[in-house]
């Protein structure tokens, strides 16, 4: 039985408070009017002029050209930049909320796969996985708040929600998005969002309830019930994840589409989820509460991390290469800010963090069995995939004026605090040894 140490509890609460303060600061200091934007852009311009003469001459050229532009167009541009900068604290919130929620959900998927496959090796890790999935409930609530705020126009994260997009008489009318309006409209989008989250929560609740009941009775009927639930959940999840990624992430760029997108998001979050299982397991083993977990279990988790890192890179490249080769303007619009524009560093840099680094570190059998190797690689992988979610959301919402500042770091800290607090208080509630599971013996004597 694990007890939630006071030190860790204080640490997680401190993270939450710090994060909440930072997020509040981010929301309060976001620019309010186009006047603020004018000032910001002006400051940047004068900064650029100071940089060098060559640059300055092009600036002058540009401003001479823009004199012919109407004042209305300039006002539109300012409003656009204003919306982007107002989006920043919301986008930072969304990145963190989505990242941690999907870790919880994907751990539940991994857990369900263990049930459906009747895997023997992983039973000693079941309570750890269940503990991590405890985050799904608070995570869903926090994310749904964001969805509601977007649905009720408190931010401009989703451009297709703007007024007049579906109205042919409006100047905001967009025929391409209007063609998708049977699917992409705010009420049904909110209902679908609720359905996804509801399904994740109900299956988490049922699987956990049965798993605990199995401990007390050892009744094989409960085992079969959980097996069936796990199979249904995997199928449901596969379908829902497809549309969830389209709804929440791909619709940020409503003109662009990629059929691979959902698998890409899945791969990214799957490797993060398994990494979190490995990190929490190593931590708990160090505390001495997982006496049956040996190096072979860690080795297997390391193998999954290795495998899914390659899986992720495969999708990253597939999605990129097809559109790079075809070179169709509406496709490349998505890749332009990432490959050539201002998001080049995170987009290319994460390949090193998420693919090159884990592949070389985790290739050797011995390094997968060495806990501190797995910890270091795991932290790099988690950081890399956080950047991955960041670059999925930011280019379409915040645009070229992005930076890593208070809103981004504060959101990460806040959600990390909630995550740590929820999973460890859930883990401390029940014995960590799932003694009722019929395959427990196999897991206990599992040695490589």
């Amino acid at each position: 039985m694990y007890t939630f140490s006071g030190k860790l509890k204080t640490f997680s609460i401190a993270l939450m408070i710090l994060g909440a303060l930072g997020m509040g600061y981010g929301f309060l200091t976001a620019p309010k009017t186009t006047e603020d934007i004018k000032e910001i852009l002006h400051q940047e311009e004068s900064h650029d002029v100071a940089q060098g003469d060559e640059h300055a001459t092009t600036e002058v050229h540009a401003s001479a050209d823009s004199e012919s532009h109407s004042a209305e167009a300039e006002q539109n541009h300012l409003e656009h930049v204003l919306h982007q900068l107002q989006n920043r604290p919301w986008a930072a919130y969304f990145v963190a909320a989505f990242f941690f929620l999907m870790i919880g959900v994907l751990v539940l998927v991994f857990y369900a796969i263990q049930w459906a496959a009747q895997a023997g090796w992983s039973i000693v890790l079941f309570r750890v996985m269940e503990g991590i999935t405890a985050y799904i409930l608070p995570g869903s609530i926090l994310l749904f708040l964001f969805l509601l705020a977007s649905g009720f126009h408190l931010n401009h994260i989703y451009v297709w929600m703007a007024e007049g997009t579906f109205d042919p008489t409006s100047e905001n009318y967009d025929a391409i998005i209007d063609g998708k309006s049977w699917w992409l409209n705010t009420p049904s989008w909110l209902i679908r969002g609720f359905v996804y989250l509801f399904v994740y929560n109900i299956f988490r609740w049922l699987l956990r309830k049965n798993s605990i009941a199995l401990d007390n009775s050892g009744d094989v009927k409960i085992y079969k019930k959980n097996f069936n639930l796990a199979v249904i959940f995997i199928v449901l999840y596969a379908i829902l994840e497809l549309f969830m990624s389209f709804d929440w992430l791909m619709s940020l760029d409503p003109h662009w589409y990629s059929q691979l997108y959902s698998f890409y998001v899945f791969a990214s979050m799957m490797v993060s989820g398994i990494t979190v299982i490995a990190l929490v397991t190593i931590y708990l083993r160090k505390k001495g509460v997982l006496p049956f977990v040996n190096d072979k279990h860690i080795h297997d988790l390391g193998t999954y991390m290795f495998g899914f890192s390659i899986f992720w890179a495969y999708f990253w490249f597939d999605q990129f290469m097809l559109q790079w080769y075809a070179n169709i303007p509406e496709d490349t619009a998505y890749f332009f800010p990432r490959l050539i524009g201002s998001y080049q560093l995170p987009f290319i840099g994460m390949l090193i963090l998420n693919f090159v680094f884990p592949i070389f570190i985790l290739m050797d059998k011995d390094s997968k069995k060495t806990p501190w190797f797995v910890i270091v690689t795991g932290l790099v992988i988690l950081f890399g995939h956080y950047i991955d979610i960041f670059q999925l959301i930011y280019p379409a919402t915040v645009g070229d004026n992005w930076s890593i500042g208070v809103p981004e770091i504060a959101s990460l800290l806040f959600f990390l605090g909630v995550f740590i607090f929820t999973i460890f208080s859930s883990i401390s509630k029940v014995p960590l040894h799932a003694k009722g599971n019929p395959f427990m013996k196999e897991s206990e004597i599992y040695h490589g």
Partner: protein
Amino acid sequence: MSNKVIQAMYDDDDVLLKAVKETREANHHIEEVFTPFPVHGLEKAMGMKGTRIAIAAFIYGLTGLGFAIWMMNYMMIEDWPQNIGGKPNFSYVENMPAFVPIMFELTVFFAAHLMVITFYMRSKIWPFQKASNPDPRTTDDKFVMEVELSGNESELSDFLKKTGAIELKVADKA
């Protein structure tokens, strides 16, 4: 000198595994074990060193990757620059994404084929090689353990019988 071995036959892999452990504990030298299928944990019980084929595979893979990089550069950039889909055909770096599938395939191709060939060479299975298993039944459902005969023959025979051998045969090791 004694080049003789005792070939002890077993009819169950669990019994064989136990016999291998007991024989080694009694300080007899096991020359070879013949089995119709891979027996899990046998190498460990026999005290064999871990295989180095993983390192070989890594080197083969890098060879394939290097070959693919060189090949695509020679074929598509140097020898006969080809303009496909308007991609810049005089620059390797800007054309690189198109070559990645080939790099991947050749890495796998080299690693897989050279690994199989290495395995055959190390196991001395090349064309026209005669089968070296002492009894054809080891390709069906029996297991044979070859133990070096260095001391008293009847003593070793008794010992092997006790470990569950169903048939014993003394043979000359060439």
